């Protein structure tokens, strides 16, 4: 077959036919073009948007955190039971127990204990939120040290009177410069500034404000210090424990085991709340899938619409070409050969239309994502999908006219005027 070049000849004749009837062919290919453009464009826009928001999400906090906060186990209007009263709330123990649930998955544990206090320096006197921290708080929350040092484990164990200041806090309490090794008063406690943090900046767009402005206000003390000398009780309750788990796929399972472990050490009371960010992320992703389905559907609809137009045009032009088919049959073309010739032409047209559709789709996505100020991301899978759909529909809609042509009677076709 290959040696006779029959396929090449068919493609060549099909190309001649398309070229000679450029207007008609363009019209025929329009459906494919729009279908491909719509599937490709839709997928790309949705993928770009999703990737962009994933990136933003990762940068402002990330999916990789699992928050645990204390919550009231008591329903409104009921009296707390003895068991509930006896509970100890969220404690440092919970953090270390949680970490032991899956040492491999947990890349960091951050512990927080909040308080409010007056903070006084030689330059300022303000009411401030104080964050008592332990373990990997600064690393988990993406702070980087500018000067000085972070808390040592000894600081944390001994509740040493030391503090680390965020960028904004430094500029308020020490506007003239060196904050390091100066003493500020937090409530009644004099603490030494041992570390100064770098500014955290993140803007969704250049024109917008810094999303992380609040993070720069950090006044961090060892959690033990806050618990013992400010807001404390005998049990060193915590306000928040955050586990850093980079592998999003294990978060759900970890969350379940963590819940069970905590419940058992909390006398079967669910006096804590686990905020599973992964669940939210999955939900968001499945919403993205819905958009993709919608885009694919609209692509399929335009392919179907275009396909029907195509069939119509094919059948109309078949009338003009009946005689040509008759001649070919008279000199020896079988019905199968005629079928192949018509299919070749239709599929070549689909291929060309799809090719143009790629460009339209890319241009379309580029324009929309530029308007949305989202970086364009095109998944190779979108191209494959668009092309497969075009091919399937091109094939399906080519069959009927090609069959019709191949079943002409040679005698009647020759006599056709």
């Amino acid at each position, binding site marked *: 077959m290959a*040696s*006779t070049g029959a396929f090449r000849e068919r493609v060549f004749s099909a190309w001649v036919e398309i070229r000679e009837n450029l207007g008609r062919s363009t019209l025929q290919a329009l459906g494919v073009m729009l279908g491909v453009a719509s599937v490709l464009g839709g997928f790309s826009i949705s993928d770009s948007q999703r990737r962009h928001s994933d990136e933003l999400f990762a940068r402002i906090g990330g999916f990789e955190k699992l928050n645990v906060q204390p919550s009231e186990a008591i329903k409104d209007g009921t009296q707390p039971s003895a068991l509930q009263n006896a509970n100890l709330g969220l404690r440092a123990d919970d953090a270390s127990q949680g970490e032991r649930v899956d040492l491999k998955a947990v890349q960091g544990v951050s512990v927080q204990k909040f308080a409010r206090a007056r903070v006084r320096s030689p330059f300022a006197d303000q009411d401030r939120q104080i964050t008592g921290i332990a373990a990997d708080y600064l690393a988990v929350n993406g702070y980087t040290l500018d000067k000085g040092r972070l808390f040592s484990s000894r600081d944390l164990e001994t509740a040493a009177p030391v503090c680390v200041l965020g960028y904004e806090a430094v500029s308020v309490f020490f506007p003239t410069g060196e904050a390091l090794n100066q003493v500020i008063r937090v409530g009644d406690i004099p603490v030494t500034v041992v570390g100064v943090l770098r500014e955290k900046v993140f803007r969704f767009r250049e024109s917008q404000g810094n999303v992380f402005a609040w993070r720069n206000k950090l006044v961090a003390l060892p959690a033990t210090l806050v618990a013992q000398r400010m807001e404390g009780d005998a049990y060193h309750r915590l306000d928040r424990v955050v586990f850093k788990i980079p592998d999003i796929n294990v978060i759900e399972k970890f969350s379940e085991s963590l819940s069970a472990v905590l419940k058992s050490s909390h006398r079967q009371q669910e006096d804590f709340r686990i905020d599973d960010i992964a669940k939210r992320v999955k939900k968001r992703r499945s919403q993205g899938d819905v958009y993709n389905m919608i885009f694919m559907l609209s692509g399929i609809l335009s392919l179907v619409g275009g396909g029907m137009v195509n069939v119509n045009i094919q059948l109309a032009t078949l009338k003009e070409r009946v005689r040509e088919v008759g001649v070919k049959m*008279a*000199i*020896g073309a*079988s*019905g199968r050969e005629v079928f192949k010739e018509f299919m070749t032409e239709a599929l070549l047209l689909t291929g060309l239309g799809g090719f143009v559709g790629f460009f339209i789709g890319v241009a379309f996505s580029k324009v929309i994502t530029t308007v949305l100020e989202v970086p364009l991301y095109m998944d190779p899978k979108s191209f494959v999908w668009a092309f497969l759909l075009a091919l399937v529909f091109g094939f399906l809609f080519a069959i009927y006219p090609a069959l019709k042509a191949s079943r002409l009677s040679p005698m009647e076709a020759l006599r056709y005027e």
Partner: protein
Amino acid sequence: MSRIIETRGLTKVFGANGNAVHALRGIDMAVEKGEFVALIGPSGSGKSTLMAILGCLDSPTDGRYALDGQAVEGLSGGALARIRNEKVGFVFQSYNLLPKASILRNVELPLLYAGVSRRERRRRAMEMLEKVGIPEKAHVLPAQLSGGQRQRVAIARALANRPALLLADEPTGALDSKTGAEVLGLFKELHRQGNAVMLVTHDPHIAAMAERKVELCDGLILGPDAAAA
């Protein structure tokens, strides 16, 4: 001598029941290899129908037909296409060239359907164009040729697969008398070279060039040839 055409009791009925038209009412005829036969008769006599059946473009309603020794009744569409391709060369009154293909491609087409290799196709198509005297027109489109030249191309195409039978339906009908005579001369030459030619015409002068005349009237063969088989 073996017979290129042998029919027995060929009938062809168009339509059904009340308004059936009996185009052929029982044709018995035989054509020997290398014969030059003219099929004549007034319009409506069944000439074209008979030619279509002889050329395997159409099937008879009843009767038997063997082409070059092969019975064709009941053959599939694909098998008939192969017979048309290999054993029959058609020449039509209106040339029936493919307008968008070059002369060379037109002549190559039957060879392509026969599965002949590209190189061989080209060689044989050129050879045929030389035979009909217009090799220099190989790369032009049919629209750029005169009527006589187009008919020569059609003849070259009909000859490309070296068919057992050349069927020509009013081949000079669209030509002026001078070019018509040239084309007829070509047929005579082809006959002299050993090709079996069947010429359908209503012109007795043209029919006179043939070795033998078969006259058709109302779907039946008239005269002495009726008993030829």
